[in-house]
């Protein structure tokens, strides 16, 4: 605006004329720019509609030109020779106005497009997070009913013959279920906490299956403070128990061990199986798949669950990367 005024003044026009001319032209231009901004804000044109944008700019420039010419004439025609100067300078004025308007329009479009994109990306990531939470919730839910009903059936049997044990099992089952409900899937817990929870589960299963089930848990003391996603181990062990107990006859030994490695926690679960009857598909039961899926969602890695079948023993090795202090 000042530039405009100085330019006129340098062309030997009086200062007040220069200022008024500049004010009128530029305020009008500013108003039209605001109009453009508001238009593109609510109606964001596609980048491909260049022609439309160009037409809009041309029309607005002409509108601006007519308006400013009329107003300038009204205000400043009393100055000698101004009318001629105005007519001559119309071409220059209009091309400058056109350029400014064009730039403002482009900036507006780019800005609002960017805003729009940012918003939709936020929405997308929100939706993804929701879907992920729901998926994790579902994965956990599917593991429960069989275990729950069979445990209740065992309690029912104990009530008649060994009421003390029935009471103990009700307590264990309650603590176990409370643990399931209380913990969030996204929460990280220490191995110590997770092992306590696992012991509850193993106690219940031992009552159900009696002598057939012998779990052996070996914990590296260094690993107790390591972290892992909550409720990760139980489905793993549940899978081993199911696979072991239902694929063999007689006593089933389930081994669970943990190792603290540099920046990693390793959990190894093994169970016996019968190579003659188990098809490879049975090897990756639902429990294993859900653990794999959870670790993939958390770390974006597919190599964290490794299984191996050797000498009638099926071993699952799960690596949990340790996040640097968060």
């Amino acid at each position, binding site marked *: 605006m000042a530039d405009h005024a100085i330019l006129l003044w340098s062309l030997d026009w009086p200062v007040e004329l220069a200022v008024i001319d500049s004010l009128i032209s530029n305020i009008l231009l500013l108003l039209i720019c605001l109009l453009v901004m508001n238009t593109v804000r609510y109606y964001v044109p596609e980048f491909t509609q260049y022609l439309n944008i160009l037409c809009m700019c041309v029309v607005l420039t002409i509108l601006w030109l007519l308006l400013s010419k009329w107003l300038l004439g009204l205000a400043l025609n009393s100055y000698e020779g101004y009318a001629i100067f105005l007519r001559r300078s119309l071409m220059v004025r209009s091309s400058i106005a056109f350029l400014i308007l064009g730039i403002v329009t482009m900036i507006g479009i780019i800005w609002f497009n960017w805003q729009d994109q940012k918003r939709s990306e936020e929405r997308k990531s929100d939706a993804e997070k929701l879907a992920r939470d729901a998926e994790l919730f579902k994965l956990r839910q599917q593991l429960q*009913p*069989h275990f729950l*009903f*069979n445990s*209740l*059936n*065992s*309690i*029912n*049997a*104990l009530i*008649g*013959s060994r009421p003390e044990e029935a009471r103990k099992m009700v307590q264990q089952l309650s603590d176990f279920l409370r643990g399931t409900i209380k913990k969030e899937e996204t929460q990280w817990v220490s191995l110590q906490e997770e092992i306590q929870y696992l012991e509850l589960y193993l106690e219940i299963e031992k*009552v*159900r*299956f*009696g002598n*057939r089930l012998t779990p052996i848990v070996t914990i590296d003391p260094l690993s107790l403070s390591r972290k892992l996603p909550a409720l990760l181990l139980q489905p793993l062990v549940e899978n081993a128990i199911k696979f072991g*107990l*239902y*694929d*063999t*006859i007689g006593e089933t030994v389930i081994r669970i061990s943990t190792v603290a490695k540099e920046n990693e926690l390793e959990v190894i679960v093994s169970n016996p199986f*019968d190579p*003659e*009857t*188990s*098809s490879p*598909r*049975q090897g990756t039961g639902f429990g294993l798949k859900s653990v794999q899926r959870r670790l993939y969602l958390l770390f974006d890695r597919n190599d964290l669950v490794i299984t191996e079948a050797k000498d009638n023993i099926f071993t699952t090795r799960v690596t949990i990367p340790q996040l640097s202090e968060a």
Partner: protein
Amino acid sequence: MSKVIIIDDEPLARSIVKEYLQKHPELELITECGDGFEGVKAIQQHQPDLIFLDIQMPKINGFEMLELIEQPPNVIFTTAFDEYAIKAFEAHAIDYLLKPFNQERFDKAVAKWMEQQQNNANTSAKTEELLDTASQSPSQSNRVVVKNGSKIKIIPVHDIFYLEAADDYVKIHTQEGYFLKNKTMSHFEQVLDAQQFVRSHRSYIVNVQQITRIDPYEKDNHVAILRSGLKVPVSRGGYGKLKAVLGL
């Protein structure tokens, strides 16, 4: 006096049935079994009138166990939760007890069985239908259980070369020779994965993963050559089905 056997892999689950049975002096508990193998043996030995049978058991499940018995006894199922099993029961079982169940519900199941006994209802035909429905469950459709003499054999379906009709039986051909199963061809056609097992001929169902090539044979017919060198007849209609599955 009726003879009863309990088959369940969980000791406590057996003990609750035993406890409830005490109220029924007319039912005599002969023995208890912890898995299906024991179950088959005990049923053949004792010929019970009624069994209480769990579904989820080691090695072979309750339905697979029943398939191995020539004339299955009357069954009251006891199970925790299995949507396929429940579907099968609802249509065809005498009764089923969802764990945990109480004495009252147990008595009702026994009364229902007694009533059917008196009406002399033909329950063995129903058992057949029940097994057909149950065998569509995913846990069962990836293997076939057969009896080989006194031994029980579990065949993973991918080990099957082909199936051949043989009177009232179906011959299941595998690496180790063939096994007989007292079922119809259409039963297997329904139960096995249609993308893997194709009825290539009225009397043959072939595992397409075993086929190495298909040669013309006489007029209008073909023959499928398997990896093991065995040949399986392919009829005109069967050739069309094979081509569709193989995407030719």
